[in-house]
């Protein structure tokens, strides 16, 4: 069943981003980019979501939050790290409070470059994530 591909619901969490990537994620939902064309809905609830868009890097305080949210998502799920903060930690990686990219906390499936990542790349990334999602679903079935 390829329905997963046709209706990926996203969840967005702002790790410690500067809002730059953050609002670009929202902008992708807006009329100009309108990702709902692909059935994407911003659910705002981890239990409903398939794709976890996370912006910003991981720090002491939000690492547990990110893990909690990730754990509350149902399989299959993919994680998209949006923006270079989420990928590598930007130059904030040198700061005392930053551990680095999101992969320090949870496994990441797609990395999106850019500071700030453009909505177009975010769309590309989600679409790329869908392939991973399908893959995971197949594995899930096999294991079941």
């Amino acid at each position, binding site marked *: 069943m390829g329905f*997963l591909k046709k209706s990926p619901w996203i969840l967005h969490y702002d790790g410690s981003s500067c809002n730059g990537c953050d609002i670009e994620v929202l902008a992708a939902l807006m009329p100009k980019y309108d990702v709902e064309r692909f059935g994407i809905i911003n659910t705002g609830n981890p239990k409903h979501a398939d794709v976890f868009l996370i912006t910003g890097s991981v720090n002491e305080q939000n690492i547990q939050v990110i893990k909690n949210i990730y754990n509350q998502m149902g399989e299959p799920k993919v994680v998209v790290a949006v923006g270079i903060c989420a990928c590598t930690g930007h130059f904030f990686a040198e700061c005392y409070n930053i551990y680095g990219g999101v992969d320090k906390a949870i496994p990441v499936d797609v990395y999106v470059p850019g500071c700030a990542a453009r909505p177009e790349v975010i769309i590309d990334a989600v679409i790329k994530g869908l392939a991973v999602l399908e893959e995971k679903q197949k594995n899930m079935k096999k294991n079941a």
Partner: protein
Amino acid sequence: MEIFSIILYIILAPVAGGIIAGADRIITARMQSRVGPPIMQPFYDVLKLFSKQNLVVNRFHVDYVLCFLIFTVISGGIFFGGGNLLLCIFALIVANVFLVLAAYCSNSPYTLIGAERELLQMLAAEPMLLLTAVALYNVTGTFDISDMLKTTHTPFLYIPGVFVALSYVLTIKLRKSPFDLSTSHHAHQELVKGLTTEMAGPSLGFFELAHWYETILLLGLIYLFFANMPIVGIIVALAIYFVEILIDNINARIKWELMLKSAWIVTLILGVGNLFVLYFLSL
């Protein structure tokens, strides 16, 4: 014959409901200057939900949601099987109660508050639904839908106030802004996803499915106002749904107090008032 139409309802209602939901999403998107999803999108969504993991906080949760679905279907079955309208509405209420119980049993703060909000919404909306039944009874002289359909005059002409008031509370039942308080079916809100926060995968699928059944049932209720003119009835039902979409898009979500007050005032003035007028005219 009745059995036949019940089966037809059980099979076709989700299809029609899904298509209406899809059209709803497209129209909404267009109203927001977007392109919107394909019309079959709701089906993709629900089918996807059924292929997802069934995340639960505790298992009873799923059962209650399933009961919600079953009772909605029963209520629709009573309706389309030409049964008793009161019984149908009460079955719908039971369905709704099961939804609330599903939220309660999951024991998570946002769902609990969502449940409480849903109760407030029921408190606001149920009177008008039941009053509609009473009003239709006054016009057609029966609670049996099969008999109502045999009426020769148009109920709408006698009870336009009830019709308007019903359309008003329909906004609550269809979970549309400005009354989208308990589930946040559309935009975001303070309760995350309210009632449905803890539903995931299949149980959310049941919920959506039940919502489609419910939509068809409620549109059927609108149809009854034009029971003697099938075509007009269907057109008006769809028009009302369009108006609901429009209302959804031109309003912010209001707070429960205003919802309760306005719904009751509308029920009392338009609904009950209309009954009184009817009563005095027929004296």
